[in-house]
């Protein structure tokens, strides 16, 4: 039997997903021995874009797409990857839900650019020049840049077969995924590739796992000062999003005493992570009023999924 063909592309991400893939070390080496690597850019290997383009459509078995879609180049590549790959996997929370980098959608592009290229105190730009898609330097050198757009999750551009949460997915989770791919043991299309537990289910602090009950938090606390060990952080008022987040990270943050911020993606059945997180926290606190006490709820509830929010629309 011929080996399955594999492709990987990083778009508007930070390469943390790639790094995490590399962190699977020996597992990755084994995986690569078992697949035919067709494309991997722009990291790790010097594969050529034209190599991907030259492949027949639908000839790659598994394509991983990491990072969100933020400009014209990413968009082009998303479409190309979709065309070439039988199974396209949104790898990491940027590709799945837009990621932290999706927070750009809180502001119009113009304001984002003005801040970075004109207004910051170290910038020397009295003429207010902005980077521009087409520029002629010294009247003769023509140069162009990709056009910026509001951030999108991959499935807002092309159809996606599977989603993987995590910023980045933990290397143990990736090892599990690589095995699933090789054995062909995959859930129905459209699913998240997850071990199916919430962060709370794998959290060593969960009182229910120790036969106790979760108490209602009575105040809203920020991550300042000495962090409590052992107790449930949500109970203690730290607004941990563990109850609504996939726990393929083994509750990594809770093990170092900080609350979950939701990078794992939503537990099954949830369409809008932010809405679910808000209702869960409000219910836990026993009142919607508590939401008013949360400083900056958008950066908390939609930190990783703003582009997929059904209530907040991107500014152009």
């Amino acid at each position, binding site marked *: 039997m011929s080996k399955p063909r594999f492709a990987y592309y990083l778009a508007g991400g930070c390469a943390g997903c790639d790094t995490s893939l590399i962190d699977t070390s020996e597992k990755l080496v084994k995986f690569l021995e078992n697949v035919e690597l067709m494309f991997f850019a722009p990291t790790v*290997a010097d594969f050529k874009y034209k190599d991907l383009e030259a492949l027949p459509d639908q000839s790659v078995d598994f394509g991983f797409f990491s990072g969100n879609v933020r400009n014209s180049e990413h968009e082009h590549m998303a479409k190309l990857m979709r065309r070439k790959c039988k199974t396209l996997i949104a790898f990491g929370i940027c590709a799945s839900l837009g990621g932290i980098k999706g927070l750009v959608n809180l502001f119009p592009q113009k304001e984002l650019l003005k801040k970075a290229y004109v207004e910051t105190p170290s910038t020397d730009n009295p003429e207010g020049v902005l980077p521009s898609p087409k520029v002629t330097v010294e009247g003769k050198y023509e140069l162009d840049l990709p056009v910026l757009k509001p951030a999108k999750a991959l499935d807002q551009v092309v159809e996606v077969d599977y989603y993987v949460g995590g910023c980045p997915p933990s290397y143990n989770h990736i090892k599990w995924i690589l095995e699933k791919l090789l054995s062909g043991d995959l859930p129905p299309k459209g699913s998240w590739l997850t071990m199916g537990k919430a962060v709370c289910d794998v959290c060593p602090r969960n009182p229910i796992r120790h036969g106790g009950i979760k108490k209602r938090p009575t105040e809203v606390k920020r991550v300042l000062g000495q962090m409590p060990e052992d107790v449930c952080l949500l109970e203690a008022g730290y607004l941990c999003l563990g109850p609504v987040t996939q726990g393929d990270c083994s509750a990594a943050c809770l093990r170092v005493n900080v609350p979950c911020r939701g990078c794992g993606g939503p537990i099954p059945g949830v369409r809008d992570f932010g809405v679910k997180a808000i209702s869960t926290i409000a219910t836990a606190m026993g009142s919607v009023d508590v939401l008013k006490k949360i400083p900056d709820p958008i950066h908390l509830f939609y930190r990783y999924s703003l582009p997929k929010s059904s209530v907040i629309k991107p500014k152009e």
Partner: protein
Amino acid sequence: MKKLVVEPITRLEGHGKITVFLDDKGNVEDAFLQVVEFMGYEKFLQGMPMEEVPRTASTICGVCRAVHFTASLKAADQIFSAEPPPAAKKIRELLLLAHHIEDHTEVLYALGLPDFICGPTAPPQERNLMGVAKKLGKEIVKDILKKRFSAARIVEILGGKPVHPAAAVPGGWAKRVTEEEKEEIERLSDDLIELGKVSVELFKEVVLKNPEYSKLLKEESFNVVTNYMGTVDENKKVTYYDGTQVVVSPEGKEIIRFTGKEYLNVLAEKTLPWSYAKFPYLKEVGWKGLKDGKDTSLCSVGPLGRLNVSEGYSTPLAQKAYEEMVEFFGGKPIYNVFAYHWARAIEVLNQAELIKEILKSPEFTDENVVTPPRKVTGEGIGIIEAPRGTLIHHYWTDEEGLVTDANLIVPTTINNGSIQVSVKKAAKYFIKNGEVDEGTLNLIEMAHRPYDLCLACATHVYPGHYPTNVVIYKGGKKVKELRNY
């Protein structure tokens, strides 16, 4: 007039690109390295509680994430006026050192050294980690990767996750280190000392002992003469987490010393419309354009910048390696771009030795890891040395500690001008009479790789592998196409 243009095709994929323009004789007139992505953190962090920023800002780059994390955390200390207790400082410093090692290793073995190990004009398909494995042996490379993971594992133990660390608390650290964890770190750190030694030796073996390559190290065309910046301790030795920022002139004379907010008197950034990365320069000299030489206003940072501003390293093995290197070049400052890789290898050794020193300190496992916040000051600046050079995070907040404004200057941006000069020099050196082939293309690329190949922070791309795509036009007609990806 016939014009020959070397121009990359765009709108494909890629996060950075080089365009070289040729005159009608086919010689280089100008060259541009463009950064083609833009993130906008300075704006979209607005509104966020400052204590949440480190976990968020680390995603500026997944390769050098721990540095954005640490720099913004230092700024958060000031905003909540809480000086971290000794144990927390040591934990942060150790995390930063381990992160440097893991990052430097990746740059050396996966990205920089393949040019030398596999040959600068080897086909691009072979010039990578796989090619290195073929040349040096699979076992050696596996061993290097395993030792590199030891560094990543240390980041995981201390920060909760190996990629984006989580354990940030202003004024300290969210978790103390247990004795068992310390023992594991101790075991892992033995690997790192070995890794440092191997890296320095390998550089000497592969580059210095090869006459063709050691010639490149002494080649004028690969000298980029600029000011240099780095962070030093009270003995003028290279340091990473905390210290004083020093700038030396192209002649190597100390011209500026600064800490914290004073950076605003030292650096300014020019916006040019053809790149999403700005072009920092020394305010004192004033903007002189993208030129190197005696009166340049450009400033370079990174392993070579640190080496040039300092009097070496505070640890014995690294210091010895440093002396050898300075002797090879016959003194300082060292301008050769490939010297970055050498300094990088020495730093791995230095950082591993520094980790060993921290582990000796009994404070490391102390239970007190947080100073409670006092009043909100509304402003904080964190400056640290990232693998790629000096990194500055500056935040303003309201009285609740919610971010109202931010200013970030990342090392790859500081190097932006120097990289342009380096690429142009290499292009001029290698392209003569319009003759260009794939090998030439890589030689040009080799001139930016030592800066860490990485427009990581400026472009959030994995170091060095942003694709370069070159198309040659003659009289407006495409005659040749070259791609390195």
